[in-house]
Structures are given as C-alpha cells and as structure tokens.
C-alpha cells in the first residue's frame, strides 16, 4: 500500500520541489554548479521512483481506498496485470529518456521547469497504471494532460505554445467526451471498479441497451483522442515534434499509451460480450483501420524526421486499438505485445532523432545522408528499431502483428476480418518505406557523396546507453515473446 502511494506521490512532490526551487532561469556564473545539482537531484529522484515502482509491483497485491470523494466515488488503487505491464514500460522509457535528457537539455533554457514537469508526469503515469476504478483513472487522466502540456510547449516559441494549447484542448475535449460516458455508466452499472467481464446492470442493458452502445462509442472516441485515433488525431503530429526529443520520446512511447490503457479499461467495464458484434465494434474497427493507413501514408510523405515519427505513432497506436476493437484473446495479446514493442521502438527512434539534432542540427530526413559514417552507433540503434517497427522477424513487431492478424482472422467479422490484415500489411510496407531510407542513405550515401566531415561525432555515453538499452529490450520482446504471451494468458485466465 505504502509503495503504491510513494511511487505516485514521491515523483509528484519531487517534481513540485524542482519547479519551485528552480523556477528562475539559470544564469551567469553559478550556472555550471547549479546545473550539476539539478541534474544529480533529478537523476536521484528518477532512480528512487523507479525502485519504488518496482517494489510496488512486487509487493502490493491488495487494492486499497485512499479516500472517499463521496460515499460512492472513491480514489482506489489496485495493481492488476495490465496495469503492471504498462507501468513496467513506463519505468524503462521514462528513466532512459530522463538520463538522455541530462545531456540533451544542456543548452536549453529553464531546465528546472522541464525536469519538474517530467517528474510529475512520471508520478501521474504510475497512478494511471495503478488506478483501480474509473473515477481515479479519470482524475489522473486529466492530470496527465495538464502536467505533460508544459513539456510540449517547453521551448517557448510561438509554434510550441500553439502546439501545447492544441494538445491541451484536444485532450480535454476527449476527456470530457469520456466523462459524458462516465456519468451514464455510473448510473447503469453495479460499480466503476475495474472488473473483468463487464459491470452493466442486466436491467439497464434490457432497458437502455442501444443507448448504452452510443455511450460506449462516445467514450471510445473520447479516450481515443489521447491515443491519436481518427478523427481526433490532428494534435499528435503537431504536439510531439515540437517538444524536446526526450520529451517526444516519452509522449510518443508512453503518454499516448494512457489512451490505450483507458480503452482497455472501458471495453472491460462495458464487457466484450456486450460490445461484440454490434455496430459500435464495426465502426471502431473501421476508424482504427483508417487511422493505420492514413498515419502511414502521411508519415511516408513527411520530410521532417520527428514529424514523420509522430505520424508513425498515429498509425502504430491504431494497430494496438485495432487489436482491442477485435475483442478476442489473440488480438488482445497482439495489442499488448505491440504496446511493449512500440513503446521501446518509438522511444529509441525519437532519441536517435534527438541525437541527430543534438550533434548535427539536422532535422530533415533527406539531410541525413552519410550520417552512418559519423554516428554509426546511433544509426545502428535507429536501424534495429526500424526493423522492429516494420515487423521483420525476429523483432518484436513481427510477433505482435502476427497475433493481431491471427486474432482478426479468427474473429469472423464479415469483410473486416480479412481487410484488417491486408491493411496491416500495406501499412508495414509503408513503414519500411518511410524508415529504411534513413538507414540506407545514412550508411550508403552513394558515390557522389563528398563527405563534409567524416569524423566520429557520436554523442556522449549518457545519451547512447539509454538508446542501446531500449533497442536491446525491443529485440528481446521479439525473441522471447512466449514469456509475455504466457503472462497475457495468465491475465486472460
């Protein structure tokens, strides 16, 4: 119990501490030493939080109620298998990207503010993973938007501030659509505590069944905003690229997953049996397929690397949502595997893109010719991660897509059961089309390449090690999917 509370409130409070302690910009003579303490402190906080989270995952089995907002609305925490999986991913991504930023953020202003909000996001994500009922989840869902918005607008240009506001308002719009559903769900269900198999009252299903489907659809659209689902995806390609690279990594790899987690919770609350085979399921699958295809296509024609990666996130997240929408066991396994794969891979890709910018200042993909000679290690990470996302065996993407396709074919939904895997394949091709040219031109610039300077320009270890760790993890997920699959089956059973 205390571990859960600590893993949530320690990072939030330490983030607040950093915000208040380092609220003024670092300046002049003291900058070096102040920065050193700031970075050391943040590093310490990150590690302590990671340890607290892990010990919470290991020790806390029982749920507990923190307090009662009213008699029936409670703030309730409970760790279940899905939450634990997301939390593990969060710990790895946030700690790695955090260490990466110690070097990357060296030349940015107002580092204190950045680390402060970064720590708060860590705590809020933990709370989301551990939330045991919909009210708690909704509370931290809103807080996640509010605490991650400053990361988006961190660099303070006009463009960044507008992107931050766009992110904020899209997310809140989604949250309120979800809240609409919460109001009706509360009235028509036994409880809002997450329980497998649905909580709707039998009498409500009989009386308001068709209206509840509309409610479910509105909730899915609402939480889907955070997961970048068509038609409310437009904020994602705007907001993710303007953030500093490590923050983009966390946004793309982890924060959008909060939307995925929300949709898992919502489908569980309504119960797959209630939703399966309805117009709502069909509509949801169609939306995800449209998003997959559109995201890949837009990424394919985008020249700026970070933007390209953001479009890729739009597409890849809908792979996960597609698995959820199909609503059978195989597809669900595929989804969770893809949560892990995409989490690691996308974090690596964004960190690599950040490393390119940090060392060479180049942002467009076509400027990166010959980069492999100057930053081979970074480009190798980028390449391996790319292969993982495309889904070439034995990387993680292959296994997850395999399960997704399998689930889709088994589902027996007319037309869509075959169309789904086709779209996945086409999108995989497009993925190859937008990621591999970076590698190809990076390593093989061609005979006419003059090679402006061929010195090694590899970033320092504090940037490369996090990338390497996550690259290795993404490969491990692909090599030993059985461990994860077994874990999923345990959840299912």
């Amino acid at each position, binding site marked *: 119990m205390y571990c859960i509370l600590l893993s949530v409130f320690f990072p939030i409070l330490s983030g607040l501490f950093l915000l208040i302690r380092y609220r003024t910009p670092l300046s002049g003579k003291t900058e070096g030493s102040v920065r050193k303490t700031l970075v050391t402190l943040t590093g310490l906080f990150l590690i302590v939080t990671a340890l607290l989270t892990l010990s919470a995952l290991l020790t806390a089995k029982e749920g507990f109620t923190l307090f009662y907002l*009213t*008699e029936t609305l409670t703030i309730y925490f409970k760790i279940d298998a899905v939450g634990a999986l997301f939390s593990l991913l969060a710990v790895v991504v946030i700690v790695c990207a955090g260490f990466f930023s110690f070097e990357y953020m060296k030349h940015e202003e107002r580092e204190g503010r950045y680390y402060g909000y970064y720590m708060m996001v860590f705590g809020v994500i933990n709370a989301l993973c551990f939330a045991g009922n919909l009210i708690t989840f909704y509370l931290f869902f809103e807080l996640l938007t509010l605490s991650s918005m400053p990361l988006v607008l961190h660099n*303070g240009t006009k463009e960044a501030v507008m992107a931050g*506001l766009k992110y*904020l308002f899209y997310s809140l719009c989604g949250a*309120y659509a979800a809240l609409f559903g919460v109001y009706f769900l509360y009235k028509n269900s036994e409880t809002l505590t997450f329980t497998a198999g649905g909580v709707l009252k039998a009498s409500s299903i009989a009386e308001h069944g068709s209206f509840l489907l509309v409610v479910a659809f509105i909730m899915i659209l609402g939480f889907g905003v955070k997961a970048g689902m068509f038609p409310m995806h437009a904020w994602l390609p705007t907001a993710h690229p303007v953030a500093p690279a490590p923050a983009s990594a966390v946004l793309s790899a982890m924060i959008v997953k909060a939307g995925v987690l929300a949709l898992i919770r919502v489908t569980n609350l309504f119960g797959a049996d209630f939703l399966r085979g309805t117009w709502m399921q069909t509509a949801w699958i169609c939306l995800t397929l449209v998003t997959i295809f559109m995201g890949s296509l837009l990424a394919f024609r985008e020249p700026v690397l970070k933007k390209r990666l953001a479009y890729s996130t739009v597409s890849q997240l809908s792979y996960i949502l597609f698995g959820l929408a199909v609503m059978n066991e195989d597809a669900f396994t595929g989804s969770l595997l893809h949560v892990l794969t995409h989490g690691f891979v996308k974090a690596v890709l964004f960190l690599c893109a950040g490393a390119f910018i940090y060392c060479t200042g180049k942002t467009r993909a076509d400027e990166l010719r010959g980069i492999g000679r100057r930053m081979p290690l970074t480009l190798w990470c980028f390449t391996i991660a790319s292969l993982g996302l495309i889904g070439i065996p034995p990387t993680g993407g292959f296994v997850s897509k395999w399960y997704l396709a399998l689930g889709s074919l088994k589902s027996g939904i007319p037309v869509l059961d075959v169309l789904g895997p086709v779209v996945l394949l086409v999108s995989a091709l497009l993925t190859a089309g937008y990621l591999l040219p970076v590698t190809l031109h990076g390593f093989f610039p061609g005979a006419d390449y003059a090679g402006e300077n061929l010195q090694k320009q590899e970033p320092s270890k504090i940037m490369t090690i996090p990338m390497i760790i996550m690259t290795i993890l993404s490969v491990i997920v692909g090599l030993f999917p059985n461990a994860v699959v077994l874990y999923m089956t345990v959840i299912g059973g």
Partner: protein
Amino acid sequence: MIISVILIPFIAGILVPVIPFGKRWQKELFLEAAVILNSILVWYLLLHHSDSTFLLAHFTGDLNISFRVDGMSMVFAGLVSALWPFATLYAFEYMTKEEHENVFFLFYTLTYGVTLGIALAANLLTMYFFYELLTLVTVPLVMHTLTREAVLASRKYLYYSLGGAAFAFLGLIMVIVYGSTTDFILGGVLDPAKIAGKTNVLLLIYVMAFMGFGVKAAICPFNSWLPQAGVAPTPVTALLHAVAVVKSGAFAIIRLTYYSFGTDFLKGTWAQDVVMAIVMFTIVYGCSRAVKETHIKRRLAYSTISNLSYILFGAVIMTPLGLVGALTHLVFHAVMKISSFFCAGAVMHQTDRHYVHELDGLGYKLPCVFGIFTVSALALMGVPGLAGFISKWNLAQAAVASENPLAWGGVGCLLISALLTAIYMLTIVVRAFFPGKDFDYTTLAGAKDPNWKMLVPLFAFTLFIVLFGVYSQPIVEFFYGVAMGNI
C-alpha cells in the same frame, strides 16, 4: 432576532458617511466588525432556527411581510454571510485606488441586508419586495465610477431588472389568486380546485415569471446587462455579480418552481421543456462568448452567465436530485467564481492591466494570485478533487436519473461548456506562466503580489474549493435534506 440581521447592515451602512472617522483604519475596523458580527448572528440564527414565522407587517388578506428560516434560506443566507466578511476585507484594499469610498461602502453594506431579506423571506410577496429593493441599492454601485460607460451600464441594469421584476410580478399575482397561500411550501401551493382547466395559462405565466426572475440570473436573451455591469469596482462584480445579485435570481426561480408552483404541476409539461431549452442554450452561449471576450472581467462575467444556467439546469430538472445539484452548484460556484474574480481584481489593482493579452509572464511576478487563479480555473473546469467536479457530478447524475432525453442532452451541454471553460480559463494561465521564449521580463518590473488584505480572502476561498472537492459529503447530505423537505 431574524429582523435584526437585516437591520444591522442597514444601520452600519448608513452610519459610514455619518460618523466622522479620523483615520481610515477606524472606518475599516467599524465596518468589518459590523459585518462579522452580523454574519455570526446569521449563523447563530441558522443553527438555532425554529419553524416560527416572524410577521413584520400585515396588508390585506393573507398578504404580509414576514420572515422564516427554512432549508433554502439556510443555504443562501449561510453562503452570503460566509462570503461577505471576506469580500469586505478585500474591498478595503481595492478601494484605496477609487474615489468616494463612503458612498460605496454605504450601499455595499446595505446590499448585505437586502440579500439576507431575500434569503429569509417567508412568502413570495416579501421576497418580491426585497428583490426590487436589491435592484435599487445596487444601481449606485454599478454607477460608482460615474464615467459615461458606468452610467450607461447602470441604466441598462436598472431597466432590465425592473422589466424582469414586472414579469415576475405576474407570477406573484397568479400565486395569490390560484394558490392556497403565498407562503413557501415545498411541493407548491397551487390549489387543485382553483386551477382546473387553466393549466396552460398557468404554465405560460410560469414561463414568463421564470424569464422575469431569469433576468437577474442572466439567462439568454436577457444577459447583456451583466458583462456591461463589469465596469463596477471588482468587489461589486465579484460578490454581487457572481454571487449575491445573480444568485438571488436563481434563488427566486428555485422558490418559484419548487415552493410556489410546485414540481408536480410543472414536471413533464411543455413549460419544463421550454425553460430547459433556454437554460441549455444559455450554458453554451455564455461560454462561447467568454472564449471570444478579451477583457478579463467581462470574460469572467460571461462565464458567470453560463454557470448560473448550470444552477438553473439543475432546478428545471424538477426532481429532488436536480435541486441537490442546483444547490451544490449554487454554493460551489460562488466560491470558485469569487476566487477567480478576486484574482482578476488583484491583477488590475496591482498592475492596471485589464485585457487577457496583457497578462504575459505575470505568473512569475504574482505567483500567489496566479496560483490561486489556476486552482479556481481547474475547479471551474471540473477537475476531480476540486469543488467543480462534485457539483457537475451531482447535476449530471440528476439529469441522467431523470430519464428525460432533453436533460440527457443537457449533460452534453455541460460538457461542451466544460471544454469551453478550459479554453477561456487556461489560455490565461498559459499566458501568465509560459510567456514564450523571447519575453522581456523587464516590462513587468514593479509588479508584485498584493498585501494580506487581498491574499487572506483568496487563500480562504482556495481552501474551500479544495475542501469541498475532497470532502463534500456533509454539505451534499444537507442539500439532500433541504430538497426532501427534512430541514
């Protein structure tokens, strides 16, 4: 006893220009003491109330001026008397920069008594009497600065309010003619024998009276006086135009609906649909205008328009739960909005900036004010853990439970409005704290947090916002008792 709480503010107010105070602090002390004393008396009265009616004057028949404490009056009188001492304290500091203070404090304190008169009225006639009086004593406050703009605003306010009261008067006549009494009785007083066959006329009159009282509650299309009245000094806009005056309108509508016409008579009729549609429209309309408005106080005034209709939305659901939702928002919105208004006032007082686009970077210079403003913004949006979430939750649950499809649509309106609230409040917060890369902080030199007289009320309200958000059980149960007629 009950009449003394109405008279003390009258006497204290009239004494302000009469007594020759030597120093400013003596006057402040005198006023603050009078107001606090009165508030203590009010609370004593509410906690030890009896069911007896105090008869002040008797006209013909059963028309009389009399006072009584029931559940509704406890809510409204308790709210007003809790806020007034804080607002007075704030006004002392704010008014140092304004002229003819004495006149201001005279009418400001008078208003306290009149508002209590509305809250404690035992029948429709008494309430109507104080309702008209409220218009008259607040006009000088709107006119206070005597600029052309202020005179125009006060004239508009006067015409709108008197016009509205005239329509409300129709309702009063109908209740006198067709009711068994004019006293407030939960469930209504219409006499079934008398109203037979006249249902539609009565419903029409109800809608007209609703619109009449709705003028003070700023329902669309009678709302344009409220943003214009924002020319008044901030203590007036904050306390009167976010709480006392406008909520008197909402209070009067609740009295009319639940205690005079009765929900059994109104529920499910076309009249309910009409007023609900008006209210739903106002909710969205107020917010949309707030997004468009760039003057801080006028923006908050439009936000008030929208939020007042939240209260009315709860009221026109016409179930006990709806009344609970309405009362919750009546109290919680008062605290949230007065807090945000006081922040706006503090900014205007400290920096003389009036427009949203002038607020860039001020969050670092006035951290307390903007911190508190952020809390009230989040509360108005309805973030869980703060007061706004609970009141919206109660409203929405009442709407869902009413099984009325129009009310379900109203839940949608509430949420659209929540999004717009986020837009117009958070743009201010973002501007204040994230002014952008090349912002020149030297333009803000000299701006700093105000002194304790302004900060104490702000912190007190913030405390209540959080307290109501995390621990609302007792107060909501109390509202439930009021709605069920147990208190």
